[in-house]
């Protein structure tokens, strides 16, 4: 009964995921084709090229990128090629989009990973602490801090950090060097400001979630039971409360990926010149290199979809209370 319910639930989620994937792919195709700049237009933005016969140029360039076929055939090719792992050819980088992404995703991943580690650890710590010390000055300070953290525009924070620590104090001047190992000291140092930039907002959010989740659970009867058993407070909080509070927090962290993290990482990479997918996408956008932009957006969507799916499924394992029907 239970097993069947779980399997049914997972199958249902997978079917949804498939439908959503199809929707996402279709929308990206539409975006790709409504773009007013075709690669031919892009080519023609070089004014010297403009002296040639435009019709001939357009035909030649469209042939270069397979855009001369009827639209339904293009759609079909697009879907099939995506499935085959052929994500098109960058208009302005002279290489397959897939190669470009394979090169750059790690930098985004590193930034996001470090920021999440930083923000989740600190955020949960502060949130739990603030809940335990609720209605004290510490708590109010933590709450105010989280309000500030949520409200501070992260791109502005990035600039301010540069202004203070890089321009005025001269502490963090180095740039991220792809020639060095990803976790080399120099690169980690170069990532300090970006991680704070991206992490502060998230941390503030997690502080709030952690505080309210901890408060919710602190009110629960089982906390009293645990105390009545004579457990020290740190075990009561650290084991009984946190174990219950952590699931909703993790869910929120996972769901955060879509809006806050990707948007934030995008801006952070641009501000700090980290060669991740955000910066690639940004540069590609201004080069009107739509296949790259669209594919990165698509990847973002798929990451969101998969993490949500994974979170849902893992949740069923982690939280014994969940019922699947």
């Amino acid at each position, binding site marked *: 009964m239970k097993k069947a319910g779980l399997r049914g639930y997972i199958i249902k989620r997978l079917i949804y995921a498939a439908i959503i994937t199809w929707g996402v792919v279709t929308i990206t195709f539409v975006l790709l084709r409504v773009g007013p700049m075709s690669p031919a237009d892009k080519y023609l933005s070089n004014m010297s090229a403009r002296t040639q016969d435009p019709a001939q140029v357009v035909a030649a360039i469209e042939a270069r990128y397979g855009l001369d076929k009827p639209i339904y055939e293009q759609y079909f090719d697009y879907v099939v090629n995506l499935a085959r792992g052929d994500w098109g050819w960058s208009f302005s980088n002279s290489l397959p989009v897939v190669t470009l992404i394979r090169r750059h995703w790690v930098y985004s991943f590193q930034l996001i990973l470090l920021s999440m580690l930083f923000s989740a650890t600190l955020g949960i710590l502060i949130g739990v602490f603030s809940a335990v010390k*609720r*209605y004290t000055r510490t708590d109010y300070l933590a709450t105010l801090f989280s309000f500030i953290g949520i409200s501070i525009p992260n791109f502005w924070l990035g600039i301010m950090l540069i202004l203070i620590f890089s321009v005025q104090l001269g502490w963090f001047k180095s740039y991220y060097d792809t020639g060095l190992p990803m976790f080399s000291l120099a690169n980690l140092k170069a990532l300090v400001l970006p991680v704070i930039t991206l992490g502060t907002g998230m941390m503030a959010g997690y502080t709030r979630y952690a505080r309210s989740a901890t408060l919710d659970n602190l*009110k*629960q*009867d*089982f906390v*009293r*039971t*645990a*105390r*009545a*058993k*004579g*457990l*020290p407070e740190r075990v009561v909080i650290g084991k*009984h409360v946190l*174990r*219950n509070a952590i*699931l909703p927090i993790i869910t929120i962290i996972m769901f955060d990926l879509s809006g806050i993290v990707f948007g934030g990482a995008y801006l952070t990479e641009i501000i700090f010149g980290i060669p991740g997918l955000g910066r690639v996408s940004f540069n590609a956008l201004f080069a009107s290199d739509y296949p790259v932009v669209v594919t990165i957006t698509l990847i973002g969507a798929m990451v969101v979809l998969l993490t949500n799916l994974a979170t849902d499924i893992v949740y069923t394992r982690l*939280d*014994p*209370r969940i019922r699947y029907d």
Partner: protein
Amino acid sequence: MNHNLLEVKNLKTYFFTRNGVVQAVDGVNLALRKGENLCLVGESGCGKTATALSILRLIDSPPGKILGGEILFHDEDLLRCPEERLRQIRGREIAMIFQDPQSSLNPVFTVGDQIAEPLKLHLKLNSKEALERARELMEQVGIPQADERMKDYPHQFSGGMKQRVMIAAALSCDPEILIADEPTTALDTTIKAQILDIFHDLKQARNMSILFITHDMGTVAGIADRIVVMYGGKIAEVGTTFDIFDQPAHPYTQGLLTCLPNISAQQQRLTPIPGTIPSLIDPPSGCIFHPRCPKRMPICDQEDPPEVFISDEHRVVCQLYKQPVTSPGKTGDTHSAQ
């Protein structure tokens, strides 16, 4: 010789809420003797639970705060001992069971773990030993297939079974005192009877002192040795089961008893106590029961009622009994409320 295992003296526990100060427990005295089953009865919100929680200092703070009094356990004042010492007592010497087994068990740990937890903590058993002991305890409280079921999570148990788990966890370290805060309230009638049976057996088998808190006079009759009746954060009447049921002195106790369906008396209707429970933020002056009291006297809203000993074991706090039977001077329960 002091045969009181636990003495609560002049306990005051207030809750400081946004709307005002709730005087949940206001000068309560009571004593639990070795091997007895003491029942604390009263309507909801009269301070029973707050009293019980105060004993182990489990009041949520804020908003609750224990303002004064003493709680003597083996002549040690639990209100003044360090937190560290208190933790050694909790679960080891004084265990507690709560009203709602549903929420009192942590949903994300297996019941086996939760029963074994105090064993590991207090008796320093290793995991294996603790789990083995937990299994035995589960069998003792009548959970079938304990082997299997200890790996289950609370939500896979029925309400009655959960309460058995709670009891097993409370009993794990063989405490001297068991405080049971309305352990049967959330249960069906038939399950309730089974749980009460366990309590009955416990007293027989282990000679354990039990502080049993309930609002249900019917439950009380079956298991109590002595009864404490509380009203509005204060003690109304204390006496043996026989005293209370046979010669209830306080009008409130009398009221409670008339509420009870009495089959032998062939009553047609239950007589509820008229009026509602008073606000403990702004309690009525004088006797707190006077607005609802059928035997109200003019003095009742003027003066605090005195504590009167009707017999050695039977005392009542009411103006009706103002001509005091002089106290024979037995120690223990006789501290004045003032």
